[in-house]
């Protein structure tokens, strides 16, 4: 019978699908692409067996040796607890939905099979990431999902911008990963294990006699590991890659850059939470980074005109919410928000894809408008997603945002709380703007006038996700013997209690945001240029994304490549020309000078011979005869 012990089958099936599609796939009908959805479907089926086994028998771990060198032994193992299995469900479900959607969305594209091959590889790696029971194994999967992200962002590699975005994504996340790998190795050096449970055990007894792990070391390594999460989850200041990642096909954005891969950082911190908890400084950093990200990126989402970029900045901002919740000691709230956000945002991206499908590939909101009657299903889904993210009762986003706000207030105090409310307000505002600009008013382009609803195959996942966005509300209520989903995920934490005043406050904030959006973009009671005209400097800074991208570009162009050029020149001139060619040339020059004595004149030679003989004679006389 299938159970937790067979959980490895899920990534394995997807990995096999990748290999088959990528290698002999082209001889199969439709490049064998159908293997992708088929594999993820079977993984999704297995998930239910795993889940029921988990609920019956409780958490478990399994492992086998992967690498052994000297006394270093690295295992491949799985950890199956409430957190990982829930994530497993999320990953396999969203991946399934997105692949079904892609079947219609991507039809007619070149490299159809390749697309599904990478999707399968992604699903496999993401599941491994979720299941991994040691940091190293997780790092492996971590890099592999990064690779898939790279390949899929650069799917339309003929576009220079897509190739650049792919590179940017990989390199930026890699910067975080360097920190993460250093952190992992430091922990290994001190604790002597990669096992998450072992590290957590050592961390919980930090500072005790006989424990090699000092409190400073714990803080340093947790911060380094958090650097990996910052990169992967696009937190400030490594957030720059995610908006650019929208160069990939839209379903990819839905799956990888909204619902699954980008939450890996959140998952990592949640997984390591007991260790983070023991390092208060690291926790503060997590909270501050989360808050900065949530706040700054929600402002940017307001000024973007590309529909996918609005969603991208919204994603970054909401990832900030999750980090903030984690930094406020609320694992349950963070993961709860992760789930509701994943459903809503995946759906929003798929809707955006549906919209751009309807208007023949346009992505600029200024060229849309009035699509409500032409694309009713898409409109309904997008509205549900937007309202959920805005945090309107009774959608699931309301409950998760409420949990986050409660956690922040309890864990970090009023200043954090108020700033979080500001971010939530803008979250509601830009969502209202998005929906209103795209779906109401007059069509503003030829394509928008002739828009059409998307095929059924694309609408099915949309509707399923919409239902889930509404249905995920049940997660706020008692589940499987726990007070709510948050406590199911992290039983050690305290369950947040529903506070009426908090719920009221958050509803008012969301309502205010939506109302402002309605006034500006719905009724045009306030001109959209009202704020722009009054604060041109703010507008300029926002449109340049706080100049962060420009700054990074400058650093790369002038500092990184400058140093590279300098070293290359140093290598060529100092090491090569002076150090290597120099001795060679001086030998040649000495030879050139020495050969001048060869005159070719016979009398010269004779004279030298005679002189030589005389010298020898004199020496002989001096030393042999006289002595």
């Amino acid at each position, binding site marked *: 019978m299938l159970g937790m012990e067979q959980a490895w089958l899920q990534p394995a099936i997807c990995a096999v699908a990748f290999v088959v599609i990528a290698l002999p796939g082209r001889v199969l009908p439709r490049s064998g692409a159908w293997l992708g959805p088929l594999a993820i479907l079977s993984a999704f089926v297995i998930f239910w067996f795993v889940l029921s086994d988990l609920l019956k028998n409780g958490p478990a771990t399994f492992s086998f*040796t*992967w*690498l*052994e*060198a*000297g*006394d*270093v032994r690295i295992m491949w193992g799985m950890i199956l607890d409430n957190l990982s299995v829930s994530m497993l469900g999320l990953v396999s479900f969203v991946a399934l939905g997105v692949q079904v959607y892609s079947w219609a969305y991507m039809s007619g594209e070149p490299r159809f099979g390749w697309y599904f091959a990478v999707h399968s590889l992604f699903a496999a790696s993401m599941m491994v990431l979720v299941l991994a029971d040691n940091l*190293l194994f997780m*790092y*492996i*999967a971590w*890099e*592999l999902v990064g*690779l898939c992200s*790279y390949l899929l962002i*650069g799917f339309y*590699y*003929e*576009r*220079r911008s*897509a*190739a*650049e975005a*792919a*590179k940017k994504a*990989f*390199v930026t996340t*890699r*910067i975080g*990963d*360097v920190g993460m*790998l*250093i952190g992992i*190795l*430091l922990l*290994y*050096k001190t604790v002597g294990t990669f096992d998450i449970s072992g590290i957590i055990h050592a961390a919980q007894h930090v500072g005790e006699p006989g424990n090699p792990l000092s409190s400073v070391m714990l803080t340093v390594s947790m911060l380094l590991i958090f650097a990996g999460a910052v990169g992967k989850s696009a937190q400030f200041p490594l957030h720059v890659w995610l908006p650019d990642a929208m160069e990939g096909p839209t379903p990819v954005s839905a799956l990888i850059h909204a619902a699954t891969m980008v939450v890996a950082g959140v998952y990592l911190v949640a997984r390591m939470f007991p260790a983070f908890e023991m390092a208060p400084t690291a926790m503060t950093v997590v909270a501050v980074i989360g808050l900065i990200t949530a706040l700054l990126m929600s402002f940017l989402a307001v000024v973007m005109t590309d529909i996918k970029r609005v969603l991208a900045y919204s994603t970054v901002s909401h990832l900030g919410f999750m980090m903030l919740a984690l930094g406020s000691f609320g694992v349950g709230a963070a993961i709860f928000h992760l789930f509701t956000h994943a459903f809503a945002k995946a759906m929003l991206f798929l809707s955006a894809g549906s919209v751009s499908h309807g208007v023949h590939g346009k992505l600029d909101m200024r060229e849309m408008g009035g699509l409500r009657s032409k694309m009713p299903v898409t409109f309904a889904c997008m509205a549900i997603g937007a309202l959920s993210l805005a945090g309107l009762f009774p959608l699931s986003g309301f409950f998760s945002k409420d949990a986050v706000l409660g956690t922040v207030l309890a864990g970090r105090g009023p200043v954090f709380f108020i700033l979080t409310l500001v971010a939530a307000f803008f979250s509601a505002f830009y969502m209202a703007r998005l929906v209103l600009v795209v779906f109401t008013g007059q069509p503003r382009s030829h394509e928008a006038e002739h828009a059409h609803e998307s095929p059924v195959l694309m609408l099915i996942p949309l509707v399923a996700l919409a239902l889930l966005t509404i249905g995920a509300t049940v997660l706020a209520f008692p589940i499987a013997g726990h007070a709510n989903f948050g406590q199911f995920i992290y039983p050690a934490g305290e369950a947040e209690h529903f506070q009426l005043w908090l719920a009221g406050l958050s509803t008012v904030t969301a309502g205010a945001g939506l109302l402002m959006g309605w006034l500006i973009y719905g009724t045009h009671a306030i001109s959209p240029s009202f704020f722009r005209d009054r604060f041109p400097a703010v507008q300029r800074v926002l449109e340049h994304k706080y100049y962060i991208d420009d700054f990074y570009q400058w650093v790369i162009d002038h500092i*990184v*490549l400058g*140093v*590279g*050029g300098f*070293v*290359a*020149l140093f*290598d060529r001139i100092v*090491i*090569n020309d002076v*150090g*290597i060619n120099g001795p*060679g040339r001086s030998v040649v020059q000495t030879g050139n000078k020495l050969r001048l004595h060869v005159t070719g004149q016979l009398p010269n030679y004779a004279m030298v011979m005679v002189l030589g003989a005389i010298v020898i004679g004199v020496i002989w006389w001096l030393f042999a005869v006289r002595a």
Partner: protein
Amino acid sequence: METLGEYILLILTALPFVGALALILFPTNRPKAVAPLVLVITSITLVLSVYVFVAYDRVAGGYQFIERYEWLPQIGASLHLGIDGIAAAMMLLNGVVAFTGTLVSWKLVTRPKDFFILFLLLVSGVYGTFASLDLLFFFFFYELAVLPMYLLIGVWGSTTDFKTFFRPKEYGALKLTLMLVAGSVLVWIALLAMWQQGSDSIGRLTFNFFDLREVAFPPTFQKIFFPFLFVGFGVLAGLWPFHTWSPDGHVAAPTSVSMLHAGVLMKLGAFGILRVGMELLPEGARSWGPVMIGLGSVNVIYGAVSALAQKDLKYVVGYSSVSHMGYVIMGLGTLDQIGINGAVMQMFSHGIMTALFFCMVGVIYERAHLRDITVLEGLSKRMGFAAAFLTIAGLASLGLPGLSGFAAELVVFIGIFRTYPILGVLAVIGAALTAVYILRLLGKVFFGPVSERWAHLTDASKLDIAAASILVGMLVLWGLYPLYIYRIIDSGVLPIAKRLVGG
């Protein structure tokens, strides 16, 4: 198989040599028959290499497949062959790279007979070096492997000509040979000193590795002569600041020669440091270890940063080799069992990876007659296979998990972190820099709009694809399941590590 096991190392070493001699007698007017003949030879050696690797008994450990023929007993020299776990892995590497190298140069038009004579001599020299347990023959084979390179590059190489930067192939050939020979001189001095000192203390003349291993060389002697070996072999391993032959030489060399040279020959240097330097002079290695790891870290960062600024595809790969060999030197410099394990694995992994790199760069150059990454653009549309293989090589190079590069670098990192954590940080940063220049290269050459200028290019030929597939198979196999090869390597590293620890 009993008898085969007894003679297998001799066959491996001698077969390419005999093949080269046979080729000399081969009629010049039948150039087409040369490559198949060579392929037969290299496939036999490949099969035997795999056999040696698989049949090596890692539980028993130590030196196996030993055979010995007296050669000049008056000075204590004998043809003494045998391999440990480290050499077993290197044998496999050489078998694979030589075989794929033959496939790649199948279509060679210019004087194929002469080319393959030198090629086979080189292969024979490499096998001999890995298998020799006699310092005289070790040196002989070492030189045999190094010297054919001069002609191979000088005659069949290619000249780099950017308008502002001109490097004739003769320059590359000359520099490579002179620098390596200079290194050999240092090695030879140290070998003779060890012969003299060892023979004195034993009481009879001997070049034999086993005899010399029993000799307790005085600490001062070890401290003086270890640097000779380290620098001498280090030149071949691309040690900074003696690395400049490597980019220039590899750039000038024809494809299969680059493959063999960067893939296998550079490993001879590291292997020499390990086998002769560290195993025979452990005390010297102990006192010079910090210098080794320091220079190694310079290699890593310096190579990676230099690669950032290169415009020529092959120069990028050449500097990347300098950077990756830095990990090998760092791993050796830890003097730690884990670090050395990682270093050996990195030797293997880099050999395969870099062979794949040069193989695919060769494919591109052959078709575009250009290696300038600022000019090449959007090639993946026309050259899907080449793009895929070069991407895989690049990913292995930047340490992507699932490919053998990661399995190697990770263990090196662990070894460094256990000994010098600060340098470990540098090493990890080096890996990140690799990502930058590799992705920059891939992005420029393969992605972006398809230009009219490159529309006529054809994809890699079937033989190239076959060769690359074998290499990719190796990368993936040991990337996903490094346990097997690590156990074999570890059986060879363990005794060396013990000698390095015990005074």
